[in-house]
């Protein structure tokens, strides 16, 4: 077993272990921290595959953004240290069985299928460097991604305004019935 494989299995253990603990831990703050480890493991997997830019984006957006947001919302809505209710036994049982069978079926398909790379792709690899990403992202020619780039900027603006409108606290008396303001 080479060092590369050992590193891969460590990364895999962090991802899967963090994921399992994130969905089973009954303390919500701990679940968020386990999610953080799982996402960091995924960033490590991107580094392992030599996709440094995606790994950096993963750390900045997920670990620095989404998990911090989740932790803040936990602080706003929970008394920290509280244990969540244990899920109903039959729901745990049937969800577990359903996911295990579905995962087994998918594993069967993956092991049966023979993935063959196109010969042309192996001969002409494009490095996932920041230069290549930037050139193709803002290119207006064929295979350029300028249109999705602009659309996603509008989506982010809409999400920004939407968040402010939804989460804003209306001060003073309102016409809304009690509990809806």
């Amino acid at each position: 077993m080479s060092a590369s494989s050992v590193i891969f299995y460590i990364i895999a253990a962090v991802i899967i272990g963090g994921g399992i603990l994130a969905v089973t831990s009954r303390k919500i703050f701990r679940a968020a921290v386990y999610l953080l480890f799982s996402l960091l493991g995924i960033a490590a997997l991107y580094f392992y595959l030599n996709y440094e830019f995606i790994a950096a984006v993963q750390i900045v957006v997920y670990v620095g953004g989404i998990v911090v947001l989740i932790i803040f919302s936990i602080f706003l809505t929970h008394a920290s240290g509280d244990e969540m209710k244990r899920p109903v036994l039959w729901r745990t049982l049937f969800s577990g069985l359903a996911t295990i069978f579905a995962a087994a079926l998918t594993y069967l398909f993956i092991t049966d299928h023979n993935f063959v790379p196109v010969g042309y792709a192996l001969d002409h690899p494009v490095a996932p460097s920041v230069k290549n990403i930037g050139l193709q992202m803002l290119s207006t020619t064929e295979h350029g991604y300028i249109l999705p780039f602009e659309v996603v900027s509008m989506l982010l603006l809409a999400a920004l305004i939407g968040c402010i409108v939804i989460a804003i606290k209306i001060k003073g008396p309102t016409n809304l019935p009690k509990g809806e303001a």
Partner: protein
Amino acid sequence: MNEIGLTHILFISTALFFIGVYGFLTRKNLITMLMAIELILNSVNINFIAFNKYLYADKLDGLFFTIFIITIAAAEAAVAIAIIIHLYRSLKSIDVDDADIMKF
């Protein structure tokens, strides 16, 4: 075990996807359900990157899909948390069982 290939990475992403599905089915708390959705989105990202690296190394399309998925996941998480905070203000709870004011 031999060389790490595409199949190994697909195994990880499949496991992560179904862990997310399990969490989504068993959890009753909106924030933990959101965390399960993040796990599912991340498993999709791993798939895109792995296929791009091992099968279509001459293109960057999988990488762009990953970038856009990460962007939209961030927007989705922000809106979801705004809704959760608003729901908490009106119901004093973020349990899905309590959020039945739109029923009937």
